[in-house]
C-alpha cells in the first residue's frame, strides 16, 4: 500500500510524462484512441478533476445514470461543491494519502473482476468499505499488456461503439466503486456520499482516463427507489430530478445534524470524529460549523430558479401571484421549433377553465382564469428537459416525439418577469443528454459535454471520445433522427468568456486548416472522413483561468454589458450579481485568503469604477464634440433643408400622426400574437396532457425547507410507496392543476407534496 501511495504522490505534482496513461507509452500499441491522442500533450494533473475523462460502466440499461452523472461531473461548480461539501481544503485532499490510511481508490484492474462485476453482484452489494482492504488488488501498471489491441481480431469492427467500449473496459483502470466513505465524510450513506465517492475517486486517480463502475451508487439508488430497481430502460430526466433532490436532501440532513452536534460541546464532536478514525473529519466541525451551514443550499444555488405564476381571475380581474422553485424546466415541443420558442411557449398564457378552474380568493369560488408562468429568478445552471416522450391517448402509451428542435450554443431567456434580476443573463450550452431509440421504453442514453479545456466529448458509457463542436448539432431531431437531444444543460457565462472561447475555437480551427494545407492530397476532400486522415477534430483549448476565484467572479459578472449611463436613460439593470449566490468558495479557503481576496476584489472594483468614470467623461466629451459637429453640419445643411422646408412641415405632421399610431400599436400588438399561437402540429390535446405542462418544477422544497424536514420525510415515504405500482397515464397528486382548484392552504400542502417527489411524470416509473 505504501508503494501505491508513494507512486501516487510521486506522480501527481511534477511529472507530466508519467501522468499519462501507461498505455500511451507502450510501444506495442499501434494506435492510440482519439482520447489518448487528445490527452497526449496534457500537462501535470490538476487537483480539481477538470482533466479527468472516465467512462462509466453500463450494468445493463444504466446508461440513464451514466449520462447524467457525467453531465453533473463536468459542471464545474457542482463538482466543486460535491468535493468540498463536508468542508475540506484542496491541499488536504492531496496530502491525505501521505497522512494516513484513508484509501478510497479501488483500482481493480483484473479482467476477471471486471467481467464478474455483472451488475451489482451480491458480493458488491454487501461489501461495505473497510479501509484496510482497499489497497489495489492488482497494480495498475501495465494495462497496455492486458489489452493489447493486437490481440483483438481484426474482424471486429473497430469503429463500432461496442468495440470501443470493450477496449475502454480492457484498457482500464477500472475504478470499482463498491465501497463507501460516507463515514469519512461524517455523513450517513446516501446517494450523495456515493456520488462524492465516485467524484473523489476519479479526481484522486492518477490516470486521466479509465472506467468507473458505480456499483455502490446504483445499489443505493435501487435500494431507495423502487422504480429504478427493474432492469428496464429508465428516464434520464427522471433520474436527474431524483438525484438532485436526493443530493439536496442529504446535504441538508447532514447540516441539520451538524447544527445539533455543534450545539453539543466541541470535545464531544471531536471524540466523535476520532471514533470515526478519520483525521479529516476531526477537523470538520470546528472549521465548517459556520461555513458549511451557510453553504448547504448549494444545489439550490446552482440549479434552482423561481417561477412566478400569475393567475388572473377573469371574473374579478384580480391577479394573484405564486412563486415556485424549480430545478429544471420541462418544455413541450413543437415540430420545427427552437428551444427559445419552447421556453416562450412555456410562458404563454393558459386558460384555466372547465374542469380546470381556478379558485379565486377574491370572488370565492371556482372561476375561469388566465395563468402564465414566468421566470423570476434565473438559475445558474439551467437544465432543460425536452418532453420528447408524450402520452398519446389513442395509443394509451408514451410515444417518442422526433420533432426537430434546434438549440443554440448560447441562450438567453425571454420569459422572465419584469422585475427579474439580470434578465439578460447569458447561458452557454455545456452538456446534452441524447436519447437514441424509437420509443420511451427502450433505447440508449449518451451525453455530449463541453469540458473545461478539452472541447466537446462524447460520453457513451465506458467510451469517451472527443468530438467536433458541430457534432453537438447532430441531435436536433427530425424525420430520420433516432438520436435526439433530451436534456440540455445550460450554464451561466459572460460575454467575455464567450468571446474568449470562440477565439480559441477559431484558432484551433485555423490550425487545423493550415495543417490541411500541408497535405494537399487530403485537402481535395477535406473533412470527408476526418478520422482517416489524421485528427479532424478541432479542439478549442480554452485558456483556462487558473485563478481560484474564477467561479466567484462569475457570480458577480454582468452577462449583459452595463448600459451606458446618460441623462436620458438612467440605468435599470446594472447590478447583475445575485446576492444569494455569493459565498461559493467560502469553505475552500482559509479566512486569510478570503480576506485577501476581498481586498483584491475591492481594489479591482475601485479600479473599475475609476475606469468607468474616465470612460464616462470621455463619452461626455465625445458627446459634446459630436453635438458641436452636429450643429455645424446642421447649419451647413440648412441651405439644403430650406429647399425642402415644405416637406419638413409635412414630416412634422407625419410624425405627430405617427405618435398616435405608436399609441395604438399597443392594442394591435395582440393580433400577431394570436397568430403566433396557431399550433402547427397539434400533437397534444390540450385537455388531458397539457396538464403536465408546468409540472416540471422538479424540486421538493424551498431553500429553507429543512426546518420542516421531518414532516416532509414521512410524506416522501408515503409518496414513494404509492408511486411505485402505478400504470402509465395515471397521475399522482403532483399535478399543478389540482392545486389550483383547491383553496390556498391545501394548495400549499399539495404543492409540497409534489415537490416531495418532483415526479410529475409518474408515467415513467417503468
Amino acid at each position, binding site marked *: 500500500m505504501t508503494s501505491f501511495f508513494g507512486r501516487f504522490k510521486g506522480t501527481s505534482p511534477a511529472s507530466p510524462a508519467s501522468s499519462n496513461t501507461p498505455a500511451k507509452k507502450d510501444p506495442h500499441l499501434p494506435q492510440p484512441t482519439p482520447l489518448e491522442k487528445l490527452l497526449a500533450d496534457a500537462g501535470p494533473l490538476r487537483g480539481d478533476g477538470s482533466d479527468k475523462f472516465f467512462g462509466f460502466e*453500463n*450494468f*445493463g*440499461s444504466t446508461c440513464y445514470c451514466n449520462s447524467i452523472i457525467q453531465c453533473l461531473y463536468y459542471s464545474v461548480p457542482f463538482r466543486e461543491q460535491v468535493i468540498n461539501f463536508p468542508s475540506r481544503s484542496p491541499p488536504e485532499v492531496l496530502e491525505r494519502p501521505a497522512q494516513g490510511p484513508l484509501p478510497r481508490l479501488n483500482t481493480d484492474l483484473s479482467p476477471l473482476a471486471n467481467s464478474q462485476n*455483472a451488475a451489482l453482484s451480491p458480493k458488491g452489494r454487501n461489501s461495505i468499505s473497510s479501509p484496510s482492504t482497499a489497497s489495489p488488488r492488482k497494480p495498475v501498471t501495465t494495462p497496455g499488456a492486458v489489452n493489447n489491441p493486437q490481440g483483438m481480431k481484426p474482424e471486429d469492427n473497430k469503429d463500432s*461503439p461496442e468495440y470501443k467500449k470493450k477496449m475502454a473496459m480492457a484498457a482500464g483502470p477500472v475504478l470499482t466503486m463498491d465501497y463507501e466513505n460516507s463515514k469519512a465524510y461524517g455523513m450517513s450513506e446516501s446517494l450523495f456520499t456515493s456520488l462524492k465517492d465516485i467524484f473523489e475517486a476519479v479526481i484522486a486517480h492518477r490516470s486521466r482516463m479509465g472506467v468507473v463502475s458505480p456499483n455502490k451508487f446504483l445499489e443505493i439508488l435501487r435500494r431507495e427507489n423502487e422504480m429504478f430497481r427493474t*432492469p428496464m430502460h429508465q428516464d434520464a430526466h427522471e433520474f436527474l430530478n431524483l438525484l438532485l433532490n436526493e443530493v439536496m436532501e442529504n446535504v441538508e440532513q447532514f447540516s441539520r445534524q451538524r447544527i445539533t452536534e455543534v450545539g453539543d460541546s466541541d470535545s464531544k464532536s471531536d471524540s466523535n470524529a476520532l471514533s470515526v478514525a478519520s483525521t479529516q473529519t476531526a477537523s470538520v466541525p470546528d472549521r465548517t460549523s459556520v461555513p458549511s451551514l451557510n453553504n448547504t443550499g448549494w444545489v439550490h444555488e446552482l440549479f434552482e430558479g423561481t417561477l412566478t405564476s400569475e393567475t388572473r381571475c377573469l371574473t374579478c380581474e384580480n391577479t394573484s401571484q405564486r412563486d415556485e422553485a424549480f430545478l429544471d424546466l420541462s418544455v413541450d415541443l413543437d415540430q*420545427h*421549433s*427552437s428551444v*427559445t*420558442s419552447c421556453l416562450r411557449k412555456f410562458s404563454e398564457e393558459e386558460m384555466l377553465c372547465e374542469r380546470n378552474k381556478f379558485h379565486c380568493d377574491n370572488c370565492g369560488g371556482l372561476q375561469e382564469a388566465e395563468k402564465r408562468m414566468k421566470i423570476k429568478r434565473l438559475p445558474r445552471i439551467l437544465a432543460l428537459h425536452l418532453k420528447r416522450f408524450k402520452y398519446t391517448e389513442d395509443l394509451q402509451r408514451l410515444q417518442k416525439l422526433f420533432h426537430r428542435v*434546434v438549440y*443554440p*450554443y448560447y441562450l438567453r431567456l425571454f420569459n422572465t418577469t*419584469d422585475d427579474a434580476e439580470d*434578465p*439578460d443573463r447569458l447561458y452557454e450550452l455545456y452538456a446534452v443528454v441524447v436519447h437514441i*431509440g424509437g420509443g420511451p421504453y*427502450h433505447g440508449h442514453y449518451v451525453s455530449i459535454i463541453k469540458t473545461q479545456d478539452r472541447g466537446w466529448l*462524447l460520453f457513451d458509457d465506458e467510451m469517451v*471520445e472527443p468530438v*467536433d463542436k*458541430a457534432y453537438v448539432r447532430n441531435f436536433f431531431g427530425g*424525420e430520420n433522427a*433516432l438520436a435526439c437531444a433530451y436534456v440540455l444543460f445550460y450554464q451561466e457565462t459572460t*460575454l467575455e468568456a464567450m*468571446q474568449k472561447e*470562440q477565439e480559441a*475555437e*477559431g484558432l484551433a*480551427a*485555423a490550425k487545423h486548416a493550415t495543417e490541411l494545407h500541408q497535405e*494537399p492530397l487530403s485537402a481535395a476532400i*477535406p473533412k470527408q472522413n*476526418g478520422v482517416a486522415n489524421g485528427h*479532424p477534430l478541432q479542439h478549442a483549448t480554452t485558456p483556462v483561468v487558473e485563478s481560484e476565484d474564477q467561479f466567484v467572479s462569475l457570480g458577480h459578472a454582468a452577462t*449583459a454589458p452595463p*448600459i451606458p449611463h446618460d441623462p*436620458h*436613460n438612467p440605468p*435599470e439593470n446594472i447590478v447583475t450579481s445575485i446576492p444569494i449566490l455569493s459565498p461559493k468558495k467560502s469553505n475552500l479557503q482559509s479566512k486569510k485568503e478570503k480576506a485577501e481576496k476581498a481586498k483584491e476584489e475591492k481594489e479591482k472594483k475601485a479600479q473599475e469604477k475609476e475606469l468607468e468614470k474616465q470612460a464616462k467623461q470621455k*463619452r461626455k466629451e465625445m*458627446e459634446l464634440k*459630436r453635438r458641436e*459637429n452636429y450643429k455645424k453640419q446642421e447649419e451647413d*445643411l440648412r441651405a439644403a*433643408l430650406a429647399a*425642402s422646408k415644405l416637406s419638413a412641415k*409635412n414630416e412634422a405632421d*407625419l*410624425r405627430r*400622426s405617427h405618435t398616435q*399610431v*405608436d399609441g395604438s400599436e*399597443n392594442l394591435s*400588438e395582440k393580433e400577431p400574437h394570436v*397568430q*403566433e399561437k396557431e399550433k*402547427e402540429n397539434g400533437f397534444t390535446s390540450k385537455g388531458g396532457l397539457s396538464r403536465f405542462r408546468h409540472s416540471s418544477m422538479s424540486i421538493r422544497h424551498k431553500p429553507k425547507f429543512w426546518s420542516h424536514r421531518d414532516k416532509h420525510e414521512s410524506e416522501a415515504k408515503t409518496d414513494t410507496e404509492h408511486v411505485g405500482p402505478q400504470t402509465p397515464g395515471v397521475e399522482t397528486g403532483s399535478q399543478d392543476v389540482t392545486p389550483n382548484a383547491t383553496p390556498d392552504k391545501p394548495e400549499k400542502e399539495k404543492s409540497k407534496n409534489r415537490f416531495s417527489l418532483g415526479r410529475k411524470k409518474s408515467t415513467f416509473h417503468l
Partner: protein
Amino acid sequence: MFVLPPPPRYPAGGYPGAPGGGPLIETNNTLTHPTGPEHQLVVGEGTYVLRDDLHLATPPPHPSEAPVHNPNPLATTVSPPTAGTKLSVVVIAPRQQSYQRLYRLDTTNSTRSQVPPSIQESPHETNSQASDAGSHSANGVTPFEGLHAPAFGEGNPLLSIVNGKDAKDPLKRRKPKSNIVKSNSSFVSRVIPHEALSKRLQEHNPNGLYAFANVNRALQWLDLSSPTKEEHMTKILFTKAHALCHDVNLVTRGPNHIDMIMGFSTGDIIWYEPMSQKYVRINKNGVINGTAVSDIRWLPNSENLFLAAHMDGSLVVYDKEKEDALFVAEDQAATGEVAPNEKERKAALAVKKSVNSKNQKTNPVSYWKTSNSKINAFAFSPDCRHVAVVSEDGSFRIIDFLSEQLLHLYTSYYGGMICVCWSPDGRYIVTGGQDDLVSIWALEDSMLVARCQGHNSWVTAVAFDPWRCDERNYRIGSVGEDCRLLLWDFSVGMLHRPRAASVRQQRGSITSATLKMQKSRADGSTTRLRSNSNLTTASLDEDEIVHPVEPRARTAILPPVMAKKADDHPLCWLGFEEDCIITSCSNGHIRTWDRPKEGAGSDDDEPSTTSTSASAPASSA
C-alpha cells in the same frame, strides 16, 4: 440476482423511414399546384396566393460513395457542410426596376446639388443629416445606380488595367475556358442539359426569371417563366462537393451571357457560363483557402471581381479570370496567430492581402480575415461601399470594403447570426439568427433599432421587399427553420418601445432621431463615420467600433404583420420579385407566391404600406 438484459443497441432499421440505400435513380423535378386557405398569405395589402410548388429532385449519392445501411447515429465522423436549396435569380432584360419609381428622383437630385461636395462624397451623410433635421423625406432615398461610387481597387493601377481591357468590348464577354459537358474533371460528375436547350433559350421571355438552385450535390438552371419550368435547363451533378452558395453577375448578364459563380463545400469555386456551358475552377483544391465557401457574391458593379466568405472567417476577393497561386499572407503582422493585443485585433479587420498590393497577377485580389469563426453570410450595401458580414459566433460586422476597414462590430442577442440584408436605400441592415430574432440596425445611427419577435426557430433568410418600401416604410420578409414566412412592416415612426423604457419616452414621439439622443456612444461613432471618408488609414477607436449587446429592456420589439407556415420543411431562402415572393426549403421545394391581384388590395400599387396611414401625406409631398 437477475438476468441482465443485453446491452443497449441502436435499433437496427426498426424505425420506419430510416435512411437506407435507395435505388440510385435520377428523378425528375415535380411541379404541383396546392390550393386552399393554408396556401395563402393574408396581409394588409391583400392576399398572396401560392402559384405553384416546384420540387427539385434530390440527386442520389454518387456511386463512389458507399451507401450506408443502418448508420450509427452517434458516428463521430465529421460530415461536410451542406446547404438547403437557395436560388440565384436573374432577369436578362429587366424593365425599369419598379421600386425606383417610388423614389422621387427629381427632388433627390435637386437637394443633392445644394449639398457641399465634401458631404456629397458619401451619400449616407446627406441622408443622415437630412433625417436628423426631420425632413429626410425630401431626399431619403438616393438611387445609387445613378451615383458613381468609387470602384473597388480603383486606386490600384494594376487592377484597373484588367478592367479597362474588358470594358472596351462589352458585347463580347469573355467566357470561361473549359467546357463543362466535355470535362473529364473528377470534380464534376455529370452534366445533363435539356434536350431542347437551344429552343428553350430562344423561347425564353427576356423579362422572365432564370434561376440557379442548388440541391444536395446538384445545381439546376431553371427557367421560372417557362410553362415547363419543372424541366431544368441544365443540371450539373458534382462528384462530392455541394454547392453552398452562388450568385449571378448583374452587370455582365445578357441574352447570350450569364456569369455565375458557385462556392463549394470543398472550398472550390466555379465560374460558370451556362449559355456556352463553359466553366473555370478557382481556388482549386483549396490552394488559396481550404475551407468551405459559405457565401459568395459578385462585387457590385464589377465584371470580374467577386467576394467569397470562407468558413474560417476569411473574406477573399477573387478575379474570375486570374490564375490561382498559393496564397501567402502579405502583411505578416496580420497573420500572426498571437495577437499583440487581443482587443485591438478584434476591433480591426486583418488585411492579409490588400487590394492595393503590388502583386495582382494572380488570385486572390485581396484577402481579409474577420475572425476565426465561420462566416454565415454577407451582403453589399446598395451604395457599393459597405459589406455587412454575419458570423457563427454571433458577430455582425460592417466593413468599408473600399478602404478595407472595419466600421462596426455588433453582437447578436445570443447565438450565431445566419443571414443579413440591406434596405434598398442602404440606411438599415436586417439580420436574422439563432436567437429567433430579426434585428434591424441603423447604419448612420450605428445602433440596434428593433428586434422583431415572431419566429419559432432560427431565422435563416431575410430580405427587403423593395416594391413595398418607401422612404419611411419598409417591408421585410423573413423565413426560418420553423417553416414559416413572416412579413414585417417597419416604419421609422412606429417603433414600439418596451414598457420599461417607454415610460420615460412618453413626452415626445419616438423616432430614430430621439432614439439616437439616448445613445451617446452611438452618436460618437456617427461623428467618426462622417469624418471617415477623409482619413482612410487612421486607426479607429476600439470603443466606437465594438458595440455592446443591447439589453432586452431597452430594445424596441416589432411584431410581424403576417406569419404563416409556408412549407413543410425548414425554409432557407426568400426572394421578392415584382409579381411574387419566392421561398425555398431545405428539401428542394421552391414555392412561388403571387402578389395580390390589382384591385383586390385597395392600395396595391401604392408605395405606402397599409400599416401606417400617416405615410400618405409624405408620399404626396
